[in-house]
């Protein structure tokens, strides 16, 4: 019987199995940031031990950083303390830090792939649920808690139970105005925010294979939003072309060796998954969410579900929070903010997509439109390509890299009661700031809303 790609990579990293318990899994790359690492370093100090292998851990500051005037000290005292603590811990324990001001700084899940640190066949963890985009390169990447961050720092391993496997196959051609964000919002709306819990997903099928690496990362990024431990896509020529030549990519004869190995990384013919889903790409239209979890999504032309005849307290609470009525379309709903950024959609391709749509147009007067590049390198490339000027001319503000208004932790927030069409990954109550009302969508749909000031079907703006 054939084996899945997940099984092959996982099993090759298991050092020890505890009877009726978890397995000791070796971790090839560990990313850390300022929010979920301080207590882990404190734990090492308390035990009087160091980092097991400093060459395997890479740090950056992203959650707490401002996206304006990054050359100035961070104003919020607690945020500054947390970022300073990361600097101090990295110095003390000998961990490489791409902090504020460094040309490699950025959102942790943007910089790993763009620097070529993220490679096929690896196990990758980070104290952050959105570690899953690394999986787009054919590796096992998943989010962990702070106690587990401490495990990896101390021993380069985590204790984990092996998840079950899930196949999500999407075949066919995407229709006009539909991009990878719409695919994943559609999948989550179909299988719910808990449909993937206990599983690790492999995305495959012709619709997935046709996507760029940036687009694949968007899909894997949101696999956690269906409850899955992570998502992966088998590596192919598109993957290898993306990695080649990047700062930390293998070179020369090592590259050839790695490439030979990477080409073996695929699920065998006839391998059996614990659960399988099949979707038709042509059935997907631009998506948008109406509620307070990422599974509450609809096609842009569809109606919000009716809550009148249901006893579903969760849906009622969601529509109440969003101040929306059931059984009505979202199209035409007035919005206040547009946020384009986050580890889901802040890569150069996302910015290009937005620039192409808004070029020569103007955003609506009443809309506040923020665009946050995922990293210093994305920011630089956007400037090299003149994207910053196109965006500025259309009234969009291109800011500096960070997690920004994705999570309402730094200065960037959506005010209470305001509607924000956002390219981020979570529409939970208060996620973008207390009382903020988030509608998740693709960069195209978000840009279209910024131009008209209303929830808009982007297909009507495309030739």
């Amino acid at each position, binding site marked *: 019987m054939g084996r899945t790609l997940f099984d092959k990579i996982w099993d*090759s990293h298991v*050092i*020890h199995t*505890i*009877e009726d*318990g978890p397995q*000791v899994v*070796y971790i*090839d790359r560990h990313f850390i940031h300022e*929010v979920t690492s*301080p207590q882990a370093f*404190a*734990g090492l100090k308390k035990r009087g031990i160091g980092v*097991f*292998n400093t060459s395997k851990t890479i740090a950056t500051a992203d*959650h*707490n950083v401002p996206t304006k005037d990054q050359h100035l000290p961070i104003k*919020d005292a*607690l*945020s500054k303390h*947390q970022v300073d*603590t990361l600097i101090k811990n990295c110095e003390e324990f000998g961990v490489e830090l791409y902090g504020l001001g460094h040309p490699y700084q950025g959102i942790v899940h943007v910089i790993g792939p763009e620097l070529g640190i993220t*490679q096929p066949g*690896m196990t990758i963890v980070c*104290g*952050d*649920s959105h570690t899953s985009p690394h999986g787009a390169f054919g590796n096992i990447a998943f*989010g*962990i*808690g*702070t*106690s*587990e961050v*401490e*495990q990896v720092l*101390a*021993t380069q*391993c985590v*204790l984990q*139970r092996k*998840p079950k496997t899930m196949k999500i196959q999407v075949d066919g051609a995407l229709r006009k105005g539909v991009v990878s964000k719409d695919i994943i919002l559609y999948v989550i709306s179909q299988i719910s*925010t*808990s449909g993937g*819990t206990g599983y690790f997903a492999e995305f495959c099928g012709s619709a997935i294979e046709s996507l760029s690496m940036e687009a694949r990362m968007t899909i894997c990024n949101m696999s*956690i939003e269906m*409850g899955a*431990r992570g998502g992966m896509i088998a590596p192919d020529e598109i993957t290898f072309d993306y990695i080649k030549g990047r700062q930390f990519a293998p070179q020369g004869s090592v590259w050839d060796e790695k490439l030979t190995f990477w080409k073996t990384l695929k699920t065998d013919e006839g391998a059996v998954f614990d659960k399988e889903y099949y979707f038709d790409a042509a059935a997907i239209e631009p998506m948008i969410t109406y509620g307070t*979890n990422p599974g509450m999504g609809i096609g842009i032309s569809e109606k919000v579900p009716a809550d009148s005849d249901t006893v579903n*307290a*969760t849906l009622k609470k969601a529509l109440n929070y969003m101040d929306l009525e059931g059984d009505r379309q979202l199209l035409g709903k007035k919005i206040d903010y547009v946020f384009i950024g986050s580890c889901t959609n802040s890569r150069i391709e996302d910015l290009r997509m937005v620039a192409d749509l808004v070029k020569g147009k103007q955003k609506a007067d009443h809309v506040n439109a923020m665009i946050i590049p995922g990293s210093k390198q994305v920011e630089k490339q956007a400037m090299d390509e003149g994207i910053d000027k196109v965006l500025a001319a259309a009234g969009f503000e291109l800011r500096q890299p960070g997690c920004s208004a994705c*999570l*309402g*932790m730094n200065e960037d927030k959506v005010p*209470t009661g305001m509607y924000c069409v956002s390219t981020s990954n*979570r529409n*939970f*109550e*208060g*996620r973008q700031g*207390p009382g903020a009302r988030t509608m998740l969508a693709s960069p195209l749909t978000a840009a279209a809303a910024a131009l008209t000031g209303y929830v808009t079907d982007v297909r009507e703006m495309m030739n």
Partner: protein
Amino acid sequence: MEKFKKLVSSVVPLPLQDVDTDQIIPARFLKATTREGFGDNLFRDWRYDSEGKPNPDFVLNQGGIQGEILVAGKNFGCGSSREHAAWAIYDYGFKVVVSSFFADIFKNNALNSGLLPVQVSDAFLAKIFFAIQGNPSAQLEIDLENELITLQTTGESESFEINAYKKYCLQQGYDDIDFLISKKLEIQEFENATAI
């Protein structure tokens, strides 16, 4: 970690599905660099209004309802991996969370923080909520040794699952890092031989 034995307690009901970790502890309260004190902001935006006044409709503000067991709807702890969510629940004074389904990362984080997640059937969860509705001081017994949860008012029981290793850790107050450190030699050998 504190050792977990048997617990008998009244419960705090939160009959909502998909309670995400942003609700348990909003991101703006994650700026501390220690593990303590997160309980003050547990369920912050449900518990307090925008001016910081307690919301009388929220269960933690209803004086008559107290206990060391939190009982919540399906898919508890979804979303962000922040272990701070488990710390906040524990710091507030809960020792056990009962639900019919837990998100994966939350479950691990809870076990690593000394907080016991007890997964019950949808039917048993409904019975607990029903019992509390009738009698807010209804108690649950959590027997870790025998992996049994009992609704004291009716005497109904259900067994719950926990793997033997994690059970041992909770009972002994032993943590994963102690175990991993004991495997350091094997890890070093593995790294030397195979690591990429």
